[in-house]
């Protein structure tokens, strides 16, 4: 028969065991919680706004500049080449953001119209835009300054807002300098802004800054390639990057590789001209005009759809060596498929036939 001491042990022990069990159960029910903390402001990097991965291969273009007095340089964020905060009275502040758009062309009017729309003003027509703005020096070239004040008060305290925007073209890349904030504060800093523009130095590519696309963090999932295809012999599947459905490598001469990627965008994916010019930008070629586009393309019937092939030769900005790109644009299944092969000219020439076979074998899953 159990002694009283032993019974007491068992009771306490049982209670302890159950308490630990409740702890386990409670631990499994952890809920996310909101946290609040204060951190020091991020400092701009010594590399003067070098940008991380993204943009065409070879790194993003960037600026060397002198920060005007009273302006607070911000840590590089998003896709800005430079970013400043300009404090004003009370809690008012203005912001200067500098954004290059390599590989993009013909967006100057659209961008200025967007600035005007933000201030509640009507858009410029093509004719109006040609004569709008004032010419201002930007580094050793010129840009166009647009002074856009809101028609009505838009800010707290019944104040108007203002944008001083400058668009400058440099080596085929449009640069956008947008100083915006409370109208009086922006106007008061106009002279400093113009002085800043005179002294900037443009640099394309990056020196000493991080290189091409990240191998980490992990890629976004697109739910698996929504297509079936026959992969040609000699093509090895590699891990696709973000927004790419599939990618392959095949061996080229001298250890170089030929890369082929597959991606898909809904609708027309932006149109043939814009995409061809994006690729031309990646090979450091000037953008094609609408009139000359047709002569650059070859049309092939694939599964009853008209696929467009573009063949371009330029320079790989990463290596500085000649490179060739053959890309196919295939409208199918409610979207537009892009098959892009790039590498050394001779290697791409050899693999072209494989690319065509690959594109012909592709069938979107339904």
């Amino acid at each position, binding site marked *: 028969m159990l002694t009283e001491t032993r019974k007491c*042990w068992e009771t306490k022990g049982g209670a302890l065991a159950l308490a*630990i069990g409740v702890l386990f159960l409670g631990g499994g029910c952890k809920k996310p919680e909101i946290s609040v903390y204060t951190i020091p402001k991020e400092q701009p990097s010594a590399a003067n706004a070098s940008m991380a991965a993204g943009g065409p291969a070879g790194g993003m273009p960037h600026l060397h500049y002198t920060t005007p007095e009273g302006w607070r340089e911000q840590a590089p964020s998003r896709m800005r080449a430079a970013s400043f905060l300009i404090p004003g009275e009370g809690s008012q502040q203005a912001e200067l953001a500098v954004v290059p758009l390599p590989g993009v062309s013909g967006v100057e009017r659209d961008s200025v119209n967007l600035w005007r729309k933000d201030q509640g003003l009507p858009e410029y027509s093509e004719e109006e835009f040609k004569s709008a703005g004032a010419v201002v020096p930007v580094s050793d070239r010129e840009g166009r300054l647009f002074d856009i004040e809101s028609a009505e008060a838009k800010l707290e305290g019944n104040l108007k807002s203002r944008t001083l925007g400058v668009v400058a073209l440099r080596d085929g890349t449009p640069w956008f300098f947008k100083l915006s904030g409370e109208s009086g504060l922006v106007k008061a800093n106009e002279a400093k802004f113009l002085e800043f523009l005179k002294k900037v130095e443009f640099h394309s590519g990056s020196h000493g800054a991080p290189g091409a*696309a990240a191998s980490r963090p992990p890629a976004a999932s697109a739910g698996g390639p929504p297509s079936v295809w026959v992969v040609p012999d000699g093509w090895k599947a590699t891990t696709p990057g973000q927004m790419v459905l599939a990618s392959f490598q095949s061996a080229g001469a001298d250890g170089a590789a030929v890369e082929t990627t597959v991606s898909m*965008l809904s609708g027309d994916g932006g149109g043939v001209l814009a995409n061809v010019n994006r690729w031309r930008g990646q090979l450091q070629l000037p953008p094609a005009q609408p009139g000359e586009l047709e002569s650059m393309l070859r049309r092939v019937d694939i599964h009853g759809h008209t696929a467009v092939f573009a063949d371009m030769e330029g320079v790989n900005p990463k290596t500085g060596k000649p490179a060739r790109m053959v890309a196919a644009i295939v409208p199918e299944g409610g979207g537009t498929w892009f098959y892009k092969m790039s590498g050394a000219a001779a290697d791409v020439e050899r693999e072209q036939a494989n690319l065509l076979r690959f594109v012909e074998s592709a069938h979107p899953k339904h």
Partner: protein
Amino acid sequence: MSPILNKLLKFFTSLRLTVVCLAFALGLVFIGTLAQVKMGLYIVQENYFQSFFVRWQPQNSDWSIPIYPGGYLLGTILLVNLIAAHIQRFELKRKKIGIFTIHAGLILLLVGQLFTELYQVESFMRIPEGESRNYSESHRESELAVVDVTDEKSDRVVAIPAGLLRTGGEITHEALPFKLVVKRFNGNSLPELSEAPEGSGRFRKLLYKEQPRAVKMNDRDIPVAEVEVVAKDGAKLGEFTLSNWLSELHLAGLVREKLGSFLPPDFDKAPVVSHQGRQYELNLRSARYYKPHKIKMLDFQHDKYIGTDIPKNFSSRVQIIREDTREDREVLIYMNNPLRYGGETYYQGSFERGDVVSILQVVRNPSWLTPYLACALVGIGLLTQFLQHLAGFVRKRAA
């Protein structure tokens, strides 16, 4: 003792319960392994092992029913069973020491795992050479950060875990001067362009298409949220679409590369809400863990075997800088030689092409010692049992 307590104790101390739980655990591992093929490791971990029940949800429905005990439930019952049986059969005898030591090791292992589950935090620090970081980021968790950027020297952050956005509804907090109304949240998304241009130009709107959750090991979910900011007096301060696609530099770079021809130059600008004289920036980003120190990447080395592309060694020479303790020293982190600092361990995790960006894996696990102690206890217990049996055998033979 009351009959009910008696019955409970009898149930929880029974060996039959142990066998049944172990059988269920085997089954759970088996079905979890099969499910992983389609659902991926992380979703299976969440639904099968980090839950009390495995649930079945009919297609196109909101309800689900439990169909199998999950890892938490089995672990809890096993632990209670082990402790209860241990105490019930406890006899302070020398020949039982081995058994009790083994059981103590197993209990420590289970409890240690619970603490690891509750308190372990894994994150990464991506640091280009020459730059420093005072925070690490989560691989898989996101947060909506409302950052008061008004002050010159510091920012005040209210970080709302994405888990709270999933259910929609309103989010309020004493540190927020307004409320956030979550109109839409998708755990995984892919950006795309609107069909038609906005206005007369060619710029299009950036939309986000919902995607199934990532299942591959190297994939991750990239969420999107549509949020309305409403002041306490009911005034609407704006409606914004937020996504990691815009807040994380390399993702924004990809969007720019693929779709930039059709997006305005500042498409990725973080929205700022002005309210009561202060500016609040909204960001949906990877969850951040700030440190009291910063780590500066002095030099990243990627050594290969001579004449080959086979990696030999990765190492990061870093500088630890901490103002409150006036600490400033250099450390070399390389494979199998992590830095243990501030309760965290910094491993050489990965790097980016170009060999100028190092990625450190940061692990905080307060109970990192428990598996070692548990294994030591089990080993000592087994050795004790073995030696006791051996001694007894030798004595009998001698006699």
